[in-house]
């Protein structure tokens, strides 16, 4: 523990700028994965233990697209849309059969999917860890703001993830589709009786959730190594986010993800060996005091 270091950091503008900008960026990336998880859970009642696999696929799709075209835009779109398509595919073939099934069934199907996809990825892209390139424009020296360091690429990540978060909030809050989805989350039978094709709604929600995970994978591929099995650690973090935020709540997930991002970035200064423990501690505290999460409506 190094509280003196932490105090002096909070007291210095340069340290604050660096840590806050890094924490928010990492938090927003995490939010993309967690929001898909929480959305799928809220509407479909499915705990997608294979969500990390979607993140991993996004990274691989982006990597191949970038190698082929050299365009960051194309690679991001490929990651997002590719995983959305893949999500649609597994929703129609696998998950559709287990809606309403007990948790054991859901867990086992996801577990099987993780096992299969880790190997499929290995067959297609090889078992080696890979690294996606990034455009030279992003490689310029970092901005110095108030003495703090902010790399251009992190600013790009911040901008894109924030825009997607806002778009998601708008889509869920203000559009007809969003209202249908929210209604389906509460009572899908009633929505179906109103003549809405709930099958379509479910498929769309799963595809959107998958697309968000794919986007996160695609965006982080240039700065993280891409490797079979990369989904698991992301899965655990995003689960922590959804538990703290409240299962099914997108707003809660946003708050929790930013909280985790900042905990990580300041934790590495104040509690270098206990940063991970801090996240679990936060989760345990939330579970003990408010089991439904910060913004949860579903009773646990």
């Amino acid at each position, binding site marked *: 523990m190094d509280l003196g*270091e932490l105090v002096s*950091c909070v007291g210095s503008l340069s*340290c604050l700028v*660096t*840590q806050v900008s*890094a*924490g928010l*960026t*990492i938090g927003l990336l995490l939010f993309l994965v967690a929001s898909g998880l929480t959305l799928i859970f809220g509407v479909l009642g499915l705990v997608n233990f294979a969500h990390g696999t979607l993140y991993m696929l996004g990274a691989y799709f982006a990597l191949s697209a970038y190698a082929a075209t050299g365009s960051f835009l194309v690679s991001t779109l490929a990651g997002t849309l590719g995983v959305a398509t893949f999500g649609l595919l597994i929703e129609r073939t696998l998950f559709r059969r287990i809606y309403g099934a007990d948790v054991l069934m859901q867990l086992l199907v996801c577990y099987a999917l993780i096992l299969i996809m880790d*190997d499929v990825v*290995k067959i297609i892209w*090889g*078992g*080696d*860890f*890979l*690294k996606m*390139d*990034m455009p030279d424009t*992003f*490689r310029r*020296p*970092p901005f110095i703001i108030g003495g703090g*360091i902010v*790399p*251009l*690429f*992190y600013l790009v990540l911040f901008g894109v993830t924030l825009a997607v978060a806002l778009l998601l909030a708008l889509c869920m809050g203000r559009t007809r589709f969003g209202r249908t989805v929210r209604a389906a989350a509460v009572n899908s039978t009633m929505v179906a009786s109103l003549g809405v094709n709930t099958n379509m709604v479910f498929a769309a929600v799963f595809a959107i959730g998958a697309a968000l995970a794919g986007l996160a994978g695609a965006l*982080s591929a*240039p*700065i*993280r*190594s891409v*490797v*079979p*099995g*990369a989904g*698991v*650690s*992301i899965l655990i973090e995003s689960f922590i986010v959804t538990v703290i935020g409240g299962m099914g709540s997108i707003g809660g997930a946003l708050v929790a993800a930013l909280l985790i991002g900042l905990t*990580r*970035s300041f*934790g*590495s*200064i104040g509690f*270098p*060996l206990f*940063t*991970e423990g801090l996240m679990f501690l936060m989760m345990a505290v939330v579970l003990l005091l408010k089991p439904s999460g910060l913004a949860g409506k579903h009773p646990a």
Partner: protein
Amino acid sequence: MMLKTHPGGPSRRGILMASAGLGAVAVTGFPMIASGQGRRPIRIGMPTILSGRVAQLGISSRDAVLMEVDKFNAEGGLDGRPIEMIIRDSRGVPAEAARLAREMISDGVDILFDGEPSSGGFAVHEVVRETGTLTLHINTETSAMSADPRQRFWNAFRVARQGIHDSVAGGVYAAEIVKARNLRRWMTISPDYAYGRDTTAEFVEYLRYFTPDVQVVGETWPKLFQPDYTENVTRLAQGRPQAVYSCLWAGDLVAFVEQAALYGLFSQSQYFAVNMADYTTLKQIKQLPRGVHSGNRYLSSYPPQPANAAFARDYNRRFNNYPTNWAWQAATAVHLTTAALKKVGGTDPRQLAAALKGLTIDSPFGADGKVTMRAEDQTLVGYAIGWGTTIPTEPYVEGIQTANWSQIFQLEQEWKKGKGWA
């Protein structure tokens, strides 16, 4: 994944026999071994990691073994007896490695190549301590395996580089640069598990041994499988060190380098990354920063010997990939084993062990063209260790300074005494 040298390993044979209604025979053992004693192949079992996160290293170890074994067989083997490799995937699970070793031993292998890193390596070590099978550990770098007398027994040998050797060599090299550039404020970023902690502590110890006024002003320890290093990178940025040490490796090192480069850290401090100079890492870093100090894991240009370059070329041609640190170690295991086999003329484990002890052979990977299996603790010495700085293109590392083995021996002995091991 039974391999090309000899199709149809024991398990497949077991299935065939069982399905032919000979279930009882298959259960009691593999009597096929008994037949044809005269020209029976020398069978070597090898558990290693062929799937999961470390698969690329295990695969390179397997490939190098196959390449060298094929060479030995093509030259007529041991009086016409070829070597047959039985290579199985442990998936990186130590218990599975131990089980595979046991299974291979009960299937009657003559020699075991343990292709596991330290965790699985110690698991296999315990198995062969009980069975007395001649075993060459080819990827265990943890010094304690051979340095600690309690871990030693007659039938286990290590054919791998060793943490303490690397730390001494790195300390000597870094101390020179510290003196030349007056680098006093250091930070470290290393993985938060046994390898990272031990290696970092040893490096710092030897750095201080040569330059006592060096200060470590901060440490940051990423977790195993941590996907993102931003928090560790910003921690380094806050500390404003003059030099940074890291023993991150492979995918973790690549991710760290990319993120640190975006934060402009490489222009602020001198970096010492002991595991950088390995092709799996060098090839994946898209814009390799210039001037990062690194030890050689495996480089085709170092040691600068025709035999080493030829090894890399053959390997590259056959597997369309580059050798790794695990590849040269595996090849060396084959070289030592075949030399001992020829000396003994048979596969008696006691005789082979006696032949291996103190054996010196010509090697493409030796500091002066030779490597030795040191008799006293049955571990490999004399392999080439060098430190240099990175450049963005082939050969990736320049200005390599070769470590001095007599200095390594001297400090290693002092280190052992300090631990109560010598």
